[in-house]
């Protein structure tokens, strides 16, 4: 083992002091206070993370329900269940719900909130009240957005391209207002996470001893902090146009619609990395824990996360290859976009190399890791393809692009989200889920997913445009496959939820560290107390030192 991150610990001391006797212990975080009030006014990062988790899962179900209606509609070339206007609103709402209400906050605000401070050995985040405020601001933003959907809904697509978004008769204003508010919540969380990583690491927790999940959350927070304000500005300008016609992007008033796209994608492309980086963090944790090994290169995984965050800011132009951009600019943006693939490939090879000579445990989080690996590589490679100008002109605005970003977002982020949901389940709730059901539903998710989106690559390549309501009959068999896959995927996700909910009550009681992990969050009690540790941890070795014996912290 040549990694340098525990080099300054030659004597190999085990970092644990004996905890105080059981009777003096603080109650665990679920029992630290009772009643609705103790939840709604809590500043405990674990409880806030849990509240986010519940709301976010609801949003996933909502966005999924929209998707199922869409897929059902596309079963036949003409009208199946809804009319064209409803269809346009429905895909807009699907996109908005999945992007802003589910995926952006998904892993950081639920699992990140819950485990990040524990991983760092901190008692809480740096600004616990700001954290709670961020949750309520999120709820307000979600309520305004959903309210806008109920009173009419927009038909612009989730991208709000001007000038259509300024002139469509559908309900745009409350939705962009809601997204603006959600952005405020994102920034609050980002400030909190960045400050926490800088100032609240435990004694001995050097930067290079942080778990990789903490690195990716840190990188994500930087993107959130710097990109979200630009989105806020662009949607605010669209929203303001609905009330008073500023027309900054309206050609009739001298505006340039392409400038809107530049501003919009300056956020929305990095937003893709907001979604995928935490996912990469999750799989970095699971692959190490279940291979019983330090990562093949800690530095490569940590630094490539920062690299993706940095390069991610320089690639937005590849969304506008056909929207009016010089060939030179397009080439520059195309090449910069491919840098992301280099950093991603570094990660993929490091994960695979980590498996080598490890003792690999095959369970649900690990199975999701394998799905992630496959789908992410597939989606990533098609990403390189669409970043190539000449190819993109053919595939632009077709189902090929839809399939590509679903492979990355759903195949990457959702599988990692599910991996995290199983991996940290025993720490969050103190019980074990049914492994057999977990593996089964995981396989269902994968098969359903591939069945849904693989045909869409073929559809797109054959020329079917995205967002169309009706299509020629020769596309039908692929659409039927895709719709069948979507229902399978939906069913498997529902079963996953049932499996986890059942385990909340009837699952086998877990120990504090059922996976034998070396990372700090597993070295707490079965359910961590409000301030996470009975004795403040003192890190004298790294989070992946599987070559040392595990001195398990006793269970309370």
């Amino acid at each position: 083992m040549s990694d340098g991150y525990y080099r300054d610990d030659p004597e190999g001391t085990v970092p644990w002091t004996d905890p105080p006797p059981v009777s003096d212990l603080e109650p665990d975080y679920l029992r630290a206070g009772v009643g609705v009030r103790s939840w709604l006014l809590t500043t405990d990062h674990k409880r806030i993370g849990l509240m986010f988790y519940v709301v976010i899962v609801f949003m996933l179900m909502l966005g999924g329900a929209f998707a199922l209606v869409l897929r059902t509609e596309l079963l036949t070339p003409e009208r199946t269940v809804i009319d064209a206007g409803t269809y346009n609103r429905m895909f807009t709402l699907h996109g908005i719900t999945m992007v802003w209400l589910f995926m952006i906050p998904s892993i950081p605000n639920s699992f990140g909130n819950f485990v990040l401070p524990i991983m760092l050995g901190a008692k809480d985040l740096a600004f616990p009240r700001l954290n709670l405020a961020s949750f309520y601001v999120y709820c307000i933003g979600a309520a305004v957005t959903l309210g806008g959907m109920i009173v009419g809904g927009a038909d612009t697509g989730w991208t709000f391209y001007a000038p259509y978004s300024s002139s469509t008769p559908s309900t745009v204003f409350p939705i962009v207002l809601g997204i603006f508010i959600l952005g405020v919540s994102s920034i609050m969380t980002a400030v909190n996470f960045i400050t926490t990583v800088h100032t609240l690491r435990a004694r001995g927790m050097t930067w290079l001893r942080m778990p990789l999940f903490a690195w990716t959350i840190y990188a994500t927070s930087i993107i959130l902090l710097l990109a979200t304000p630009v989105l806020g500005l662009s949607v605010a300008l669209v929203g303001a146009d609905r009330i008073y016609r500023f027309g900054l992007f309206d050609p009739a008033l001298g505006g340039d619609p392409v400038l809107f796209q530049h501003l919009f994608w300056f956020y929305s492309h990095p937003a893709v990395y907001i979604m995928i980086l935490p996912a990469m963090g999750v799989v970095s944790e699971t692959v190490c824990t279940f291979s019983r090994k330090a990562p093949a290169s800690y530095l490569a995984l940590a630094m490539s996360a920062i690299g993706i965050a940095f390069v991610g800011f320089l690639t937005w132009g590849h969304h506008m290859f056909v929207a009016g951009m010089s060939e030179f600019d397009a080439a520059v943006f195309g090449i910069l976009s491919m840098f992301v693939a280099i950093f991603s490939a570094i990660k993929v090879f490091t994960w695979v190399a980590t498996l080598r000579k490890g003792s690999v445990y095959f369970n649900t989080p690990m199975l999701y890791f394998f799905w992630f690996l496959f789908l992410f590589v597939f989606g990533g490679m098609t990403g390189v393809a669409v970043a190539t100008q000449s190819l993109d002109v053919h595939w632009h605005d077709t189902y090929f692009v839809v399939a590509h970003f679903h492979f990355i977002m759903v195949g990457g982020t959702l599988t990692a989200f599910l991996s995290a949901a199983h991996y940290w389940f025993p720490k969050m709730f103190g019980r074990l889920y049914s492994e057999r059901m977990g593996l089964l539903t995981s396989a269902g998710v994968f098969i359903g997913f591939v069945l849904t989106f693989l045909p869409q690559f073929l559809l797109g390549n054959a020329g079917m445009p995205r967002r169309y309501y009706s299509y020629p009959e020769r596309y039908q068999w692929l659409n039927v496959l895709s719709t069948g896959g979507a229902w399978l995927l939906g069913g498997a996700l529902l079963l996953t939820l049932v499996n986890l909910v059942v385990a909340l009550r009837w699952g086998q009681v877990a120990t504090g560290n059922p996976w034998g992990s070396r990372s700090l969050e597993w070295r707490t009690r079965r359910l961590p107390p409000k301030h996470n540790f009975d004795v403040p941890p003192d890190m004298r070795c790294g989070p992946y030192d599987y070559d040392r014996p595990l001195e398990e912290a006793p269970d309370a």
Partner: protein
Amino acid sequence: MRDPLAEQFEDLEKQASAARLGMWAFLGSEVLLFSGLFALYAGYRTMYPADFASAVAHDNVAIGTTNTFILLTSSLTVALAVHAIRAARARRAAGLLLASVALGLLFLVLKGFEYAEHFRQGIYPGDRYRFAELSGYGAKTFFTIYYVATGLHALHVTAGISVLGYLAWACRRGHYTPEYHMPLELGGLYWHLVDIVWIFLWPLLYLAHA
């Protein structure tokens, strides 16, 4: 009085550095908010160079420059207030903060006069623009950006005035000591941001007409 040390921190020094870092991070995001507008300005100025130059020349340099001096002075009084509280002179700090509040209000009043003058000439943002002297698309776009940028900045001035007003009141009530005056420091940082954004808006909107 509440224990100034929050439970998640080991000592006050760490807490102070966390508070400062958090504020700087937030200010970083504010800078990006305005950067979007600066990007629009740059884009449209490239599209309509002549229109932009004549529209900039039409703006009232005297008021713009006076306002720059006003904001710079208000930043100075805020900095002096932080200095005063470190020397345990809370009443003096409160007075200085109130001076900044007054200067901030003066800034808004002058800005209001400027807006009123524009409206009289028919310079409205967006599609209600009807100023015959400068009728090109570029001038129209310039003034829309002008209104959006100065409007967004004025919102920040208003927020800053409220923050400084609260801080003056808290100073007066003796909430801050030479050891603990972090809110004052952070409020000061925010006011300096409001100032710095104007330092960029001033040349772009009033001076760059060559």
